[in-house]
């Protein structure tokens, strides 16, 4: 049920992507997403898609998992795709009353759909191949240069760690509450909106209450172990820059070069 949501889940496997440094992966992810949205014609889009498929192949993650994540955003993708179909510019292809579908609209729609899908797939590759602890370590390291503007990076990292740590706990909690309310006849399948909202409230209120309780308990537990912020803490796993990371950066550079080159060389199909 809720457990099936694969968002933000780590999938243990042995692949080059699993071994790549998390810092490199974050930067790669950010940069590739920016450039995927910068694709202006079918040539650069094609390069972006090749990059995405290459990453999927390298990740060693079963296709089934990607499909699961894809299913979740399917509705969203179709919706944005449909909205983009209708464009005033370009040659009219179909016409239903006041709705016009133009060739520019079709191009738009194809680009938006493939960009959104690529974005979600790249993000899932990242979470599938990165341990949550590595992720927070990497964020902490990457934010280090910003320490001078008075933000406490180690605290942000600690908050992230806690948030990630409690996702499975909360999922378990939700399942328990759902079962308890089902036992009292709560009707989660009812079509009536009022009944549905009431059933939903019966989950949200106890969940909020127990989350607050957990937060207080955790704070007490941390304080009684003398937590004073995580500054100058040493780590068990130290992130190290390896050949593989260099290779990964190299791949991304090729990708950027390809997209920029195609954008300049060929006329833009979307604005």
């Amino acid at each position: 049920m809720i457990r099936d949501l694969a968002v933000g889940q780590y999938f243990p496997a042995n692949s080059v992507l699993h071994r790549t440094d998390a810092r490199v992966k974050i930067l790669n992810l950010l940069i590739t997403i920016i450039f995927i949205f910068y694709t202006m014609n079918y040539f650069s889009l094609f390069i972006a898609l090749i990059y995405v498929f290459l990453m999927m192949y390298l990740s060693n993650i079963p296709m089934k998992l990607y499909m699961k994540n894809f299913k979740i955003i399917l509705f969203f993708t179709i919706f944005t795709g449909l909205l983009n179909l209708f464009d005033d510019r370009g040659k009219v292809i179909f016409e239903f009353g006041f709705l016009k579908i133009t060739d520019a609209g079709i191009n738009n729609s194809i680009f938006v759909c493939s960009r959104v899908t690529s974005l979600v797939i790249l993000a899932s590759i990242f979470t599938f191949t990165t341990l949550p602890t590595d992720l927070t370590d990497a964020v902490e390291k990457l934010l280090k240069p910003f320490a001078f503007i008075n933000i406490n990076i180690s605290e942000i990292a600690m908050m992230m760690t806690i948030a990630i740590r409690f996702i499975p706990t909360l999922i378990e909690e939700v399942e328990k509450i759902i079962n308890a309310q089902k036992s009292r006849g709560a009707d989660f399948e009812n079509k009536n909106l009022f009944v549905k909202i009431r059933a939903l409230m019966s989950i949200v209120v106890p969940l909020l209450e127990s989350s607050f309780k957990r937060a207080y308990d955790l704070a007490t537990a941390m304080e009684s172990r003398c937590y004073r912020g995580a500054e100058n803490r040493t780590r068990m796993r130290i992130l190290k820059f390896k050949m593989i990371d260099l290779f990964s950066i190299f791949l991304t550079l090729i990708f950027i070069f390809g997209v920029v080159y195609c954008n300049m060389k060929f006329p833009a199909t979307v604005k």
Partner: protein
Amino acid sequence: MSLIEIRNLSYIYSKDTNCPKTALSNINIDIYDNEIIGIIGHTGSGKSTLVQHFNGLLKPTSGGIYINGLDIWKNPKKIRDIRFKVGLVFQYPEYQIFEDTVYKDIAFGPCNMNLGPNEIQNRVIESIRMVGLPFSILDKSPFELSGGEKRKVAIAGVMAMKPNVIVLDEPTAGLDPLSRKNFIENLKTYHSREKNTIVIVSHNMEDIVEISDRVLVMNNGRVEMFDRTKDIFSNGDVLMRIGLDVPKITKIMFKLSNEGYRVKRDVFSVKDGAEEILNLFRCDGGLND
């Protein structure tokens, strides 16, 4: 005819993944009307998984459950009706309370049954009396109550549905000894008044002995024993082997009898135990006399 009939029931967690875990295998039990059944077993023996099958929260991987002779999974759309027949009170039920007054929270179950307002009111009042709370509590917010009171409210919420069977998963966990004793007393009164069936899961052997007619012993997802309370606890060594225990007084009697004193081994209440020891002195039954 038995009220709940479980036939060849097996349940496997995460069946379609690469790490399936068998929680229950080949369970066959019958529970009759107006019985109190105790379920004991060490942590992870499958007790909670089993009771979640009683009201259709879990669907058996194989095998079936029949209530009044009807397969509850025959029509999966009607599974909600089963939940009104078999009320399940979870472990630490106080965390399921969500309404802004105690009254509304207890009324949640009956409301879901689409009862009339008068009937709902009657049931709320009846069940708050049943768990031994004052009526003044009905207008309060559940979040200002103590932990013990909250638990009683949560249990009243299930009782208000007037189920034929009420299943309680470790209802006394975390209660102080006096509340525990009161709870068991209240439950007995409730049973004699309602004439329904009660299934109670507990780690506390004293509670089990005190209240149940028959005891189901679970071990590694199987039924180890299912018999009358007296017969179960006479098998002290079997219970200890699978990580369970007998009541403290029974243990004392076992020890005395092993030392050669002539006392009965099937003593389960402190009162009977005291009587038994006094008898030793009265009729010179002791070894050293």
